[in-house]
């Protein structure tokens, strides 16, 4: 009796399997990694993984607005609407890991715009890469992320500049424009801050300057006086570069003014601290500080429409610097979907490897931030760096 039941059940199971195999579409996925299929009324799903909590919220929220505007402008891709799943990278390794795991557990997501912070990008790009997905970061700038010997993973690209460019620009600015000869750099152990500080220090020395101290603080530290006193004792330097984030940068700026020896040192930081929140955090102590960052003097009709839409939807001028980069990142993904998707009536199939190949082959892509051409390790930016000065709570571009 039992045997009979078993045979019947097995036959039923076989029948079901056979039916489902015949009953499906004619499409056969030949992609090495696999395909994503969107049915007739299903939206195309992309994810963002940007920092939307904590002291660096401005940085990520601004980028997320860029993605949302890109979706609003695009309206549909191949007749499908676009749906955004917004995740938080927390601007930390743990946050990046968690956001990555959450995204790859959803098989309907075709591409990711993220992360904001390089520190989150390192673990997340591994997770995303292993799962066969593709990600385009609007604001990771650490050199290691596109260096195959370090943290690069297949499927990772970025529209932000590589900090090899930013660090060099800041060193040039300090030596040639300000005429200083001694400098110190402080990072917080994050891949972004460490990479940028390292490039700055190397370039500064290569151009004939002297680095008196290259040191680090911890994320979450509040009392920076011991490390600043060590910097002062080593020089004191004429120029101090600390490309860190808002909270630590605020403490460093205020306390640098109170450490003997550093009263006349010129203070400077980088794009992680160009935001209204960072301007408030440094307060009066940051008056006259210099900041390196992407050159935002974009032009063209699309950018004007973008800014108009930004102000209309979010009620303010852009609150940080990478909104245009994330707009371009999202559009790169849309362009590739359109290129590689196989249409089958109203259903579309997208191969994940095709998607990656297409993204890396991006060439001469006209974005807001310039003409983007990706190299084999995913550096797509058309990098232009400028230096701004903070006066009266406003960042004013002064160089080049």
């Amino acid at each position, binding site marked *: 009796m039992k045997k009979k039941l078993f045979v019947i059940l097995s036959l039923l199971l076989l029948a079901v399997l056979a039916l489902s195999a015949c009953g499906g579409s004619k499409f056969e996925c030949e992609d090495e990694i696999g395909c994503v299929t969107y049915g007739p009324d299903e939206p195309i799903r992309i994810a963002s993984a940007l920092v939307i*909590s*904590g*002291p660096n*919220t*401005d940085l990520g929220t601004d980028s997320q607005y860029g993605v949302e505007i890109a979706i609003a402008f695009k309206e549909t891709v191949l007749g499908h609407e676009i749906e955004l799943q917004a995740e938080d990278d927390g601007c930390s390794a743990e946050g990046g890991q968690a956001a990555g795991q959450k995204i790859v557990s959803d098989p309907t997501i075709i591409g990711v715009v993220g992360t904001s912070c390089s520190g989150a990008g390192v673990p997340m790009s591994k997770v995303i890469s292993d799962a066969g997905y593709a990600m385009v970061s609007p604001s990771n700038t650490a050199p290691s992320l596109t260096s195959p010997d370090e943290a690069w993973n297949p499927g990772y690209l970025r529209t932000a500049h590589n900090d090899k460019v930013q660090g060099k620009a800041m060193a040039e600015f300090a030596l040639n424009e300000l005429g200083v000869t001694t400098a110190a750099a402080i990072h*917080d*152990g994050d891949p972004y801050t460490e990479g940028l500080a390292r490039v700055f220090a190397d370039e500064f020395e290569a151009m004939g300057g002297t680095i008196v101290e*290259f*040191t*680090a*603080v*911890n994320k*979450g*530290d*509040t*009392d920076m*006086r*011991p*490390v600043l*006193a*060590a910097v*002062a*004792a*080593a020089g004191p330097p004429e120029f101090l570069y600390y490309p860190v984030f*808002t*909270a630590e940068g*605020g*403490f460093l700026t*205020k*306390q640098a003014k*109170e*450490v*003997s020896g550093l009263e006349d040192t010129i203070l400077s930081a980088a794009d992680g601290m160009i935001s209204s*929140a*960072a301007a*408030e*955090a440094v*307060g*009066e102590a940051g008056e006259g500080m210099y900041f390196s960052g992407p050159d935002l003097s974009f032009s063209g009709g699309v950018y004007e429409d973008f800014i108009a839409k930004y102000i209309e939807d979010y009620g303010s001028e852009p609150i940080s610097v990478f909104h245009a980069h994330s707009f371009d990142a999202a559009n790169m993904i849309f362009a590739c979907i359109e290129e590689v998707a196989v249409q089958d009536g109203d259903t579309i199939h997208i191969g994940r490897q095709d998607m990656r190949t297409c993204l890396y082959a991006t060439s001469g892509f006209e974005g807001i931030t310039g003409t983007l051409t990706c190299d084999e390790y995913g550096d797509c930016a058309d990098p232009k760096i400028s230096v701004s000065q903070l006066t009266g709570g406003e960042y004013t571009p002064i160089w080049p």
Partner: protein
Amino acid sequence: MLQRLQNISFLDIALWALGAIIIFVVIWGTVATLIENPYPAQTWVETVVAGIAQGSLYALIAIGYTLVYGVLFMINFAHGEFFMSGIITATIFLAQPMKASGFLDAHPVISISLIAVTAILVSVGIALLTERVAYRPLRKAPRLVPLITAIGASFFWQYFFRGLYGSEVKSFPQFEALAGKASILGIPILKSHIIVIIAAVLMLIGLYFFIMKTKVGKSIRAVAENKDVAALMGINVDRAVAITFAMGSAMAGIAGVLFALVFRQVHFFMGFIPGIKAFTAAVLGGIGSVPGAALGGFLLGMFESVGPGLFLEGLGIPAPHQLKDVIAFTLLVLVLIFRPQGILGERLAVEKA
């Protein structure tokens, strides 16, 4: 004699060896640094004073951990949030508007008093609410239960205040009277550091007398000794516990104000790390002991501040200041190896532990 030797386990020997190695490395690093002598005297003075100021903040926060532990034998992980809640509220509703209107610079003493009172009231309010809602119903539960609840309460308050005030860093205005340095015995020291150290020491002495000399303090000590017997003696246990929470969180509220005076920056997450550090300080000094918490706080602040430059610089370690947390927690490990009850802690009787 042989009996005693047999009682020493392999683990004890391994721990002692670990402790000996750490101490050796510390001494070696210190000697190397002193020979190399990379810093002028002024740098050492600044570092030491910064360490004492940071240590006073740890001490004030650590008091809250130790008081609650002494009475309830629970680790109140939400204590860092009591610290944050008061000052973040006072910054937004008092300090920033007062700075904008010019009142702060015109009447600095009134302003700072108002800010301090508000911060204390909010901190105490949050603490009493947490105690009433989250801890009191669990008083008879196994000890792990309130511990986990405390972690939950900590997250709740963090994200409650994030939702309320936003997640940006908020700047606390500079008091003109406290800007710059004053000279003490010919050594220039930041005025804000002087205020923090004096205020912290006064608060700690005041609290010690409150616990040891007043009737209410006596009732708290009685409850700490044995809740059931204290209740039989006519002491209202719930009231004593509530007062304990109020005292601890008032200290945390003051610590918040002092933190803001020194660092001039507040944030919803600012309580987390000082909370962990102050807990470390409380364990270091001997949890349950008020003078122990104060001593632990000062020691921890000093080691964190002076340690990287003194112990690690000489060993040629790059970026030593990044390792200050390693020093703080290594100090804790060392103390726990050689004196598990903490520096001033008493060995707890079996029934209490």
